[in-house]
């Protein structure tokens, strides 16, 4: 049993590294999505979804790195706070845009001028 715990303790920094790295990659994917996707709602989707998962993975990595301490407890609280507020904020933004009458863009995306792609009235 203690061997098993020992192995877990050795593995901990590696798991933390994987979580941090994948969190960073997911945030990067979200950023590229915000730049590349065609309309407001898809961009919001990229930002909201990846931000929640990415930051939570980063926080998970940090918790694993700091071990069972007060710091990791605070990080877990930050994670809980983000888990609640981040989707709510995304919802509020999407709701406001819908209320303001912004229609999502439907149909297939044709190749277009770059000025047109970013020119929605958000």
């Amino acid at each position, binding site marked *: 049993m203690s061997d098993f715990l020992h192995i877990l303790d050795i593995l901990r920094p590696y798991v933390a590294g994987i979580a941090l790295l994948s969190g960073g990659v997911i945030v990067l994917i979200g950023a590229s999505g915000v730049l590349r996707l065609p309309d407001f709602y898809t961009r919001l989707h990229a930002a909201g979804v990846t931000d929640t998962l990415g930051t939570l993975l980063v926080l998970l990595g940090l918790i694993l790195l700091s071990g069972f301490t007060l710091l990791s407890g605070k990080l877990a609280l930050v994670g809980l*706070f983000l888990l*609640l507020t981040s989707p709510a904020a995304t*919802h*509020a933004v999407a*709701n*406001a845009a819908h*209320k303001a009458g912004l229609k999502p863009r439907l149909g297939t995306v044709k190749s277009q001028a770059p000025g047109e792609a970013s020119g929605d009235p958000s």
Partner: protein
Amino acid sequence: MNGEFLTPIDAFTVIDLIFMSMLVVVGIAIVRLKDLFAVVMLSGVYSLVSAAWFVSLDAVDVAFTEAAVGAGISTVLMLGAMLLTARQAAPTKPARHWVALIVVCATGAALLYATVDMPSFGDPLSAPNAYIGLEYLKRTGPETGVPNVVSAVLASYRGYDTFGETTVILTAGLGVVLILGLGGPAIKRKKAPAKTKAAKANQSKILGAHHVVLRVISKLMIPVIIIYGAYVQFHGDFGPGGGFQAGLIIASAIILYALIYGIDAAKEAVPPSLVRLGAALGVLIYGGVGVINLLLGGNFLEYNILNPTHPAHGQELGIMFVEIGVLVTVASVMLIIFYGFTSRQPDIKDKDW
């Protein structure tokens, strides 16, 4: 002063440079944009990036204040102000302003010239690192018993300055009141008889259905935010925090309530008369601590006298009361400004956000 010491180029310096270039980019974007909404949001981004930069410089107290003031409450207040005006800046004719260009170039050249005299970043022999900073670090522990040197310097060694700042905040609130009015119950009186009870219930039902996610989340969050404000207030002796940040956090919790449940509900929970009282009361508490010191035979804001056998305990007590005064004034003035802005509108309409 400069010369021997060179700032080492390590990962932190690179991060600092990245943050500074982001600040420059955001600043240029703010100057060039005409959409006021985007400008307000970008100024919040500017504050958040500079807060991150302050963290990287190990100035967590300043970073905390910057995040709470710049990215938090001032963005909300600017949005409130924007509801009273247009969303676009007035179009200006494209022209060359030669005088302005000359002034900017001269000021920039003078600032660049002045940086030559500044010590290198992290120079151990520079004036703040060599004499006065060390002195504060050495004396704070025995003299005040407060582990966070920043709090001790702010509330005790520089107590006069902080008293001045608190008064400045009260004066700012008074200025807003003079321009925009007190945000009293005038609107409520106008609105109340026009609506029957059924219509009101119907409307609130629609509102509830519409914002149900936000209502649930904010109901969960507002108590936690206020508790966090109290933690920041009373933990300010040990870590970053204090009256200014705590006041902003508590004010923003109430502003969040007002945004989701409507201004009238917020005014019922925290009446404007209470807020007006609080703004003056905070300064009174701060000044009162000083006057008590005077009456006990000490100097103004000399907290040692509060506990003659244990001067350090007196310091702790004085710092705590003074910070409570700061908290009350800051939170109240923020709410005065918010009420002042929003009371000019009938209500915050759904489509406005």
